[in-house]
């Protein structure tokens, strides 16, 4: 098991030269943050604020227009196998079996066949899908398919795990269960996790630290430490501490969401912010 790496997001900005109205679009104004190795950070914010863009930057699938991202001692310039990415959309390949899907990354990396099979089995065990090796994705539920995607990402033993609203398409019950699984896996494997979600409750339940991102041009508006017990489960929802955290996060997010709502309503593309942040 590789050691987790810390993530430095140094004065990063992203501006697209050609936005929808032809003028430059500033997606991310400035993000300057640091994530300790082995931490679990959630990122919440209104839709379209740039959370996914930030994750793409860390994954090396997009380049910032200003600043840089450093993972461990490596400057990010391209995708790397030490950074795992779990997508929001369906990403299992329908023509491959579950096992072949999980070992896909290993196969591309040139890992030997028997080793591929061994690791795939281990990963499927980890995500609770042991026995489904020869099934096809079409035979599985959405939640199970996302678990296959998670298993595939973990198979490469990344030091940093990026998850972009991975449970977005699932119902709440499945979300709670898989979320608990992910947290358990994190505690067992101690990777650095960046987890994007729109579900504040989920963010509080799963992570140690929650970043609230503003609407575009994005910045990190608030960083909240989640000081709930490490062995928490869903029974912590509704406790005083939980509600306080929820209230604080929602207060900030709500402001940003209202701003987003009005900006989109007016059709304004400037991205200028009309109110001051607290």
């Amino acid at each position, binding site marked *: 098991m590789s050691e987790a790496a810390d993530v*430095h997001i140094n004065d990063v900005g992203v501006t697209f030269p050609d936005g929808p109205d032809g003028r430059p679009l500033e997606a991310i104004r400035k993000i300057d943050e640091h994530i300790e190795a082995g931490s679990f950070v959630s990122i919440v914010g209104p839709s379209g604020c740039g959370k996914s863009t930030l994750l793409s930057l860390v994954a090396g699938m997009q*380049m910032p227009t200003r600043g840089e991202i450093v993972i461990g001692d490596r400057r990010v310039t391209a995708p790397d196998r030490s950074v795992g990415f779990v997508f929001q959309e369906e990403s299992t390949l329908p023509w491959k079996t579950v096992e072949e899907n999980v070992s896909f990354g290993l196969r591309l990396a040139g890992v030997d066949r028997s080793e591929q099979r061994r690791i795939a089995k281990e990963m499927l065990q980890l995500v609770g899908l042991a026995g489904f090796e020869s099934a096809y994705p079409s035979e599985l539920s959405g939640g199970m398919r996302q678990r296959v995607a998670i298993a595939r990402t973990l198979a490469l033993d990344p030091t940093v795990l990026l998850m972009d609203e991975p449970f977005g398409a699932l119902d709440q019950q499945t979300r709670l269960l898989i979320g608990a699984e992910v947290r358990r896996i994190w505690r067992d494997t101690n990777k650095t996790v960046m987890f994007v979600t729109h579900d504040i409750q989920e963010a509080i339940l799963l992570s140690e630290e929650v970043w609230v991102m503003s609407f575009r041009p994005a910045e990190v508006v608030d960083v909240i430490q989640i000081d709930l017990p490490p062995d928490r489960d869903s029974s912590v929802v509704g406790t005083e501490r939980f509600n306080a955290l929820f209230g604080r996060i929602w207060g900030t997010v709500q402001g940003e969401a209202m701003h987003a709502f009005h900006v989109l309503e007016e059709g304004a593309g400037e991205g200028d912010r009309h109110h001051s942040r607290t």
Partner: protein
Amino acid sequence: MRVTDITAVPEATELAGGRGSRRVWWSRLPPAGWTGVLLVAFIAFWQTSAVAGWVPAAIVPRFDEVVLAGIEEIEAGLFVENLASTVIATVAAHLVGSMVGLVVGVLFWRKESLGRMFEPYLVSFYAVPLVVFYPVALVVLGINDWPIIILSTVMAAIPMALNAWNGFAGIPPVYLRLADSLTASSRQTFFQVAIPAAAPLLYTGTMLAAIYALIGVVAMEFMVARNGLGSRIRYLYEAFDNPGMYFYIVSTLAVSILLVGLLNVLFRRAFPRVLAS
């Protein structure tokens, strides 16, 4: 713990959503323009190789000779006569075939098991095999226009039926439940919900119907027929009149493209939002 050396701003490479990548030289001319360029280049190449003798004149005549032969045919009224014959047969087969195909498509949508029973035959006789029935039809119906019209109507109906069936079967069930909840009659549901919802595939079906009607008509004229563009090509081939034959070959191709293009344009004018996807 922060790494402090901030290096120079990296170039923004392919950013998702940005159309700002440098304009490539070939995209300055729209596709239609390029098609025109290709056409002109083709004709130029044809004329050059014929004049320079790269290909013997007995195989490919000069382009200007073909044009001259064409003008003669037009002046003699033969071109229009044959063109009319082909176009009328094609249009008739397309219209009737589309209607029949639509009805069959609806039938298979409502009675799915019936559709599944016929499906292997629809699929296997798709795309043309029926033309080999032409000589049989000639025997039964005699040497007149009926065999061509009937067979090409069937050839047009098949793709229409398959696409219409697919189109209706693919309607999200929630639309039909909506109509039901609004107590719409069957007729209302069909015309106001089902047809618009299935429209993209109905469009595909009728375009294919037109194409296969045309291919069927020309192919059958080409085999044995009294008139029509296909039969004129055959006649001129057997009469060793190369320039005339080439003229008709080129015209047939051009007419086909124009007919289908016209149909396309008509459709987009009549139902602009249908094809928005």
